[in-house]
């Protein structure tokens, strides 16, 4: 408990709990979960289901950001992935067959990985700044997706496809299991192997890592490929949800929300130390907030404004300056304050 209070996750977790409390007081049905035909329904379940695309994209973004990078192309990769998958399904003889959907999904993910590899090539081999390197695909990707769908919104009628976003596995939505699988997979790969530490090392000090023999090029490249793959899966979930490939709307602004989720979760945009748990919390904050906005009946045109305002408050509260002020202001917690400043003093002392 004490360790948790000192961890960087205090604020995000606290804010998420606060959001849930506010919602459940304002509308008791928010926390109500009902069982229908052996499947759970309710606002919380909807959040779990709808958060899958952002969750996937944000997880990939976390790893890219840890390497000091950023991936602006994730939304465009979602569009390409959806376009590829649905074009394959639409042009097949049996769009309703599981095998067709499976092939479509695999091809779409592979294409997404190739796009991620392209980003990684520009960043790690050519040394182009990540924001510029991924901007290329962010702009070009949607164009490519439109070429694949021939400028139309490809719609298909395929039950296996629809299942991905709307189906249930046992009592919970299938999409939620995709999220969980992604979280577990990335946590295992990063934290059970040394990859996470090496990634942080590259993000904190690329040159020192290179001299220590770390394959930084491979690690950075891998991060963009992973980000591409996750965006590809997210694109399929999105397309499955609307049963169509909409190259313009798929993953629109999702790169920004993903970056926001990563930052809300306490991972610095400067790279280095990253928190997968933090990103997961960040995604749930964003999705709960969206649900709140919907409930409050805020006109959809004003949604971004409200969103921006709330996020601004959260980010300001998390800022170092604000924390210092809050510590100064409260006499009641003066003792903790003294102890804490003494602790940081000691840290500085050891450093000097």
């Amino acid at each position, binding site marked *: 408990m004490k360790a948790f209070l000192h961890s960087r996750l205090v604020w995000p977790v606290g804010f998420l709990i606060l959001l849930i409390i506010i919602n459940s007081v304002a509308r008791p049905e928010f926390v109500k979960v009902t069982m229908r035909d052996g499947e759970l329904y309710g606002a919380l379940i909807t959040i779990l289901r709808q958060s899958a695309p952002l969750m996937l994209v944000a997880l990939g973004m976390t790893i890219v950001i840890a390497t000091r990078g950023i991936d602006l192309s994730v939304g465009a990769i979602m569009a390409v992935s959806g376009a590829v998958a649905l074009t394959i399904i639409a042009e097949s003889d049996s769009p309703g067959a599981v095998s067709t959907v499976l092939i479509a999904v695999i091809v779409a993910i592979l294409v997404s990985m190739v796009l991620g590899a392209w980003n990684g090539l520009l960043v790690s081999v050519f040394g182009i700044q990540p924001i510029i390197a991924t901007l290329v695909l962010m702009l070009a990707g949607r164009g490519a997706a439109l070429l694949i769908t021939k400028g139309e919104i490809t719609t298909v009628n395929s039950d296996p496809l629809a299942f991905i976003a709307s189906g249930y596995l046992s009592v919970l939505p299938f999409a939620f299991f995709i999220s969980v699988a992604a979280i577990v997979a990335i946590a295992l790969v990063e934290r059970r192997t040394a990859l996470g530490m090496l990634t942080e090392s590259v993000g904190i000090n690329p040159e020192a890592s290179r001299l220590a023999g*770390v394959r930084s090029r491979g690690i950075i490249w891998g991060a963009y490929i992973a980000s591409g793959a996750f965006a590809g899966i997210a694109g399929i979930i999105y397309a499955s949800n609307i049963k169509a490939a909409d190259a313009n709307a798929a993953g629109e602004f999702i790169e920004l929300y993903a970056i926001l989720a990563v930052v809300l979760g306490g991972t610095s945009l400067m790279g280095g130390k990253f928190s997968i748990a933090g990103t997961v919390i960040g995604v749930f904050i964003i999705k709960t907030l969206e649900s709140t906005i919907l409930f409050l009946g805020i006109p959809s045109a004003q949604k971004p404004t409200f969103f921006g305002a709330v996020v601004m408050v959260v980010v300001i509260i998390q800022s170092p300056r604000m924390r210092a002020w809050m510590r100064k202001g409260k006499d009641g917690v003066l003792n903790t304050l003294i102890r804490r400043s003494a602790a940081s003093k000691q840290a500085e002392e050891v450093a000097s």
Partner: protein
Amino acid sequence: MSAETATQHPVEMRGITIRFPGVLALDQVDFTLRAGEVHSLMGENGAGKSTLIKALTGVYSIDSGTIAIDGVPRQFDGAAEAQDAGIATVYQEVNLCTNLTVGENVMLGQEVRKGGRIDWKATHAEAARHLASLGLQIDPRSPLERHSIAIQQLVAISRAMVGEARVLILDEPTSSLDRDEVIRLFDVIRDLRARGVAILFVSHFLEQVYEISDRITVLRNGQLVGEYAIDELPREALVTAMIGRELDDLTAIASTAHRAIDRSSTPVLRVSDVGKRNVLEPASLEVYPGEVVGIAGLLGSGRTEFVRLMYGADRAESGAFEVNGAAARIHSPRHAIDNKISFSSEDRRAEGIIADLTVAENIMLGIQARQGWRRVRASERDAVVAEFIEALGVRPANPSLIAGNLSGGNQQKVLLARWLAMAPKLIFLDEPTRGIDVGAKADIQKKVAELSEKGLSVVFISSELEEVLRIAQRIAVMRDRHKIGEVQSAETDYDTLIDYIAKGGEGSAA
């Protein structure tokens, strides 16, 4: 309290105590800085020098004691307040904006304004005046990054003097300067002293301390050892005062180090005509098992460049590599590591330590990188980390501390641990003892001598020639990006070596 009426020194600190959890960082320390003196603050890392400076400049608040500025009790809340009161600090790492012009840096925050807008012409003229008063004839409109670190250091001092500082704190200002640059800096310091500025000087270079100081205050473990006039305190006494014991006789290292090396065997590394355009003229070197080869030369002579090419940190454009007699390809650090060669960079911060990772992670980084994804087993990791923390005397001996929070000397030991843990056959050490305290320096020199006796080959670069002479058997001399020759340390001494470096090998025996 007669002090209030009798003397009013620029800085008088009495009974300063600062407590950190479990540690008494400063214990009843007195410190007086007089107008028109250069006063060196000496002590090992962790003795409390930085804490005392930070107490003075208001970065830390003191738990007890008094600080009087010109006889008036003051306590600053932050460095900005101290600066307003005429106390300026110039740190080891130059805190300037290299992408701005010299003039903009000097006048930053104090630009001449006219009608709410900055009058750049007047600002630059004013900057030029301040620079000239320190004897700096440089164009204030030139970008700062175009100047050497030494000039940048002087620009930082000019900037401090714009605020009419009467107290100037120089924290390790000379650590990245070469001899000529130090002379220039010292001229400026002497000039400021003559103008009545009180100067607090911190340096690890004893020679420089003796060259410039009027007075020395020694701290040890947060306590005041004493204040001495410079001629009252011979060097040996100073070192003893700082470390609290007699320094292990370093000449003992020399006697063991200057042993005969069997050069008929196959060299661990042989490079022939390794070079790179505008970086290093083709140079050759052989390193034999168990040998310590020193590389001597002035800053910018190509010492670091040579070693970087041999390690593959930079890619050589010409030349051949031979490891243990077999031709090898060393184009990248990984190639070098595969050939059991390690390299510890001179730039600890930018090219060595991973500041946000723990001591254990830093030590294991090399081994882990060689092993790839597969995590080193926890038991093995703990054993290696404990072994090297112990062997090198890393303090605090806590593997889960964040490495960036350790002192410079201990970070250096952590880096040494990283490289030694990889069990290299040859290690390049570029300035491994720069900017660290006397005790840690001796530890590292002893470790190098000890390891080489066990068969490790070492290439050792240091700006301190005594150090090179002490631990190397053979010294390669560099000048102007050329390797100009080699000398046997047993057959040469400090003056001969200096002479050789200066004259570029002409006339002197090679």
